[in-house]
């Protein structure tokens, strides 16, 4: 098993979880209704918890400790897809992002439960159970708002059209795809993307929303190699503010 390939896989997953977790937490105290405030806050806690599991695994492989890795890197050292760093926008966008991301995230961890890298397969067996709740939550609200009023359908459609090319960018292949597949670590981004399209299409077909043609969409890539939007660095600065003032602070 090639360690470089494994680390790349772990970093991109951890960074996606950390950054989306932070974005979700921006709904704390701001949700459109109390239950949604709680749901996004809970999912934030889950996502940051999942990233900690991945960073701990990286630490075992010789990388820096999780806090240093999370708080001391510059934007161009992050491997998250650009999708997760976009600002939360209105609730319709945050909900659509959560739906598109978590359908893929659940399948990713279902696949990883069979990984040949044992620490990852053991963790995935646990995390996929938590992710079922994320998908369940997203599906309920996508079906509600995708069938409710003209305004809700229009807004959800606009968010879907805007989010879709970014969501396709989640599956930007890594330079190590073949090695990961050969070694049985992971089934690969292309395989995951096909399963994701199938899974989310099934839910969207129960709504009034129209799915953009994946063949006609140009995925927004670059995040995996450190190319980010102008939105990531301000997020990192905010997230790391306490740690950078006093790395020994406990909170």
């Amino acid at each position: 098993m090639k360690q470089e390939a494994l680390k790349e896989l772990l970093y991109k997953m951890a960074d996606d979880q950390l950054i989306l977790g932070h974005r979700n937490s921006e709904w704390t105290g701001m949700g459109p209704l109390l239950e949604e405030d709680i749901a996004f806050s809970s999912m934030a806690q889950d996502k940051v918890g999942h990233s900690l599991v991945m960073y701990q695994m990286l630490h075992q492989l010789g990388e820096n400790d999780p806090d240093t890795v999370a708080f001391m890197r510059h934007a161009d050292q992050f491997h998250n897809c650009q999708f997760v760093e976009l600002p939360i926008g209105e609730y319709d966008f945050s909900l659509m992002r959560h739906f598109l991301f978590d359908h893929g995230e659940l399948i990713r961890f279902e696949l990883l439960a069979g990984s040949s890298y044992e620490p990852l397969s053991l963790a995935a067996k646990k995390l996929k159970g938590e992710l079922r709740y994320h998908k369940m939550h997203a599906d309920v609200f996508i079906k509600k708002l995708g069938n409710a009023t003209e305004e809700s359908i229009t807004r959800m459609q606009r968010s879907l059209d805007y989010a879709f090319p970014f969501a396709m960018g989640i599956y930007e292949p890594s330079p190590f795809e073949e090695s990961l597949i050969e070694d049985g670590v992971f089934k690969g981004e292309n395989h995951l993307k096909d399963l994701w399209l199938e899974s989310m299409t099934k839910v969207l077909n129960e709504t009034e929303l129209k799915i953009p043609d994946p063949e006609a969409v140009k995925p927004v890539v670059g995040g995996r190699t450190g190319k980010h939007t102008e939105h990531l660095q301000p997020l990192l600065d905010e997230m790391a503010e306490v740690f950078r003032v006093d790395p020994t602070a406990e909170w």
Partner: protein
Amino acid sequence: MATPDKNTIMTWLETVKDPEIPVVSLVDLGVITDVVIEQDKVRVEMTPTFAGCPAMDYMRDEVLQVLQENGIKNPEVRISFDTQWSSNMISEKGRQAIKAFGLAPPPMHDLHVDIEMLEQIACPWCNSDDTRLDSPFGPTLCRSIHYCNSCRQAFEQFKPI
């Protein structure tokens, strides 16, 4: 002092409660997965209920403290996913304590929790299963929010996972 056996140590650990549901011990919750005794070293194996559970560090410190109070020198706690926690691991005693605390205990499941299961959770107050799911997320990571159509009370459930 001779090192006590595993059962004795498990009895001590029953005094450590889940800080978010202070009526259920870590043993009944199923997060203590093993006690390994090698010569005079004691190591407790734990697994998190949720990866992002903020109470995990607190629970580990409590376990260490109980072991030290009982005379174990340099005890260790190892937290891992070697055994993955599921709500099926909560003991019958734990389930009863959860219900008495006012939370619906999680139904047993085949590890494929779906929304149908959550739409008819028995109300911890009146036992009716004419209930609905209000939100799969609640005030802590391990709880969901429900409403009982029969006694017209909101209630929380310890989520099946």
